[in-house]
């Protein structure tokens, strides 16, 4: 791997990490506010996280 590719891969990881972190954090807050809606929030959280993750991997693997 060349240096720019390594930096790009690192930036991808930072972006995806921030995105998934925000989703997780917001889901935590939402569950704390409405514990009875936990199941629905978790499902929505997983879908959103999966979408971001998919693009993160796509960016990492597309050299």
């Amino acid at each position: 791997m060349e240096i720019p590719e390594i930096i790009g891969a690192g930036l991808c990881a930072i972006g995806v990490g921030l995105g998934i972190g925000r989703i997780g954090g917001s889901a935590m807050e939402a569950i704390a506010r409405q514990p009875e809606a936990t199941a629905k929030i978790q499902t929505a959280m997983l879908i959103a996280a999966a979408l971001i993750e998919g693009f993160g991997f796509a960016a990492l693997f597309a050299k």
Partner: protein
Amino acid sequence: MHHNIHSKLSVSLALAGAIIFSVPAFAQDHNHHNDSRAEAAHDTHDHTDSEGGHDVKTQIKETIEHHLADSYEFTITEGVSFPLPVILFDEGLKVFSSSRFHHGESVAEVDGNYYLLYHSKIYKTDASGHLSMDEHHHPTNIMPLDFSITKNVFMILVMAGFMFFLFKAVAKAYQSGQTPKKAGRFLEPIIIYVRDEIAIPNIGEKHYKKYMSYLLTVFFFIWFMNLVGMTPLGINVTGNIAITFCLALITFIITQVSGNKHYWQHILWMPGIPVILKPVMAIIEILGLFIKPFSLMMRLYANMLAGHVVIMSIIGLIFVFGSWLIAPAFFGLTLVLSLLEVLVAALQAYIFTMLTALYFGSAVEDHEHH
């Protein structure tokens, strides 16, 4: 309570045992690989990429690559492997056993044609097995159309057979009453979960039944394949982009075929926005049609591949340090990560099924309230 702890302990011990057995398999595997590589470098040509490749790190890298790649023989452990049939379409159908490649060391002669196995790919050569290389050391020989039963294809067939008999037996048990029996006791809650939590909320009460067979098949196929991939046999079916491509392609085709009038209207001529924006939205929506299955494909492939690579790299670190003091730490880390991978195995199956159901739902949705 006591029984519960006991069963948990036995599960942990079984997992630990599986990992212990995976370590010698790994070690033997990379010794074996090293030998065959040295021989290959000896009797073939243009093996410049193996120059100086004998330190531990390179060996680990090669072992991981070897472990993740599809192959023409099924290796159980060192020395214990069985060949699988090679099926080529090259001036007629050629069927022969992969044992004729002698692990890639010799040229296989079939009906006057010669084939050579080089870096897990079959090339057509002359009798001496000469490969002509371009400047990037890629062979320029003809590659015949390959329909071989490789390790992955073999595992898919085995799993298809296993799933067929398992679910047939479970379904049959319901004929004598509504209580699940044997495996059904374990599988019924999962099937009900797929129906009540994945299919109905996303597709809707009206249409979900038609898609249940596909959703259940894809869920159990991915889940079982992910779990089989956790064994030390080096089965990497769901971490193979060709297979995830096909799964995503099936989802794509079913979505488009079942798309109703409203679905296509929303893609091609989005209602409720200014006319000038409609063509722009159409372009974005059409791109979205292909991005959705593409992300399904990449997510499953990359997750499973990354999981395998991380676990094997950490096992590899034991050999890099080569110390009895450090090995237990990496052993523990591998155990923890393997448990995480068991979770990921189910999670990826769930997400694939969930998103598939979501796409089906968007295709069949009724817009009566408009």
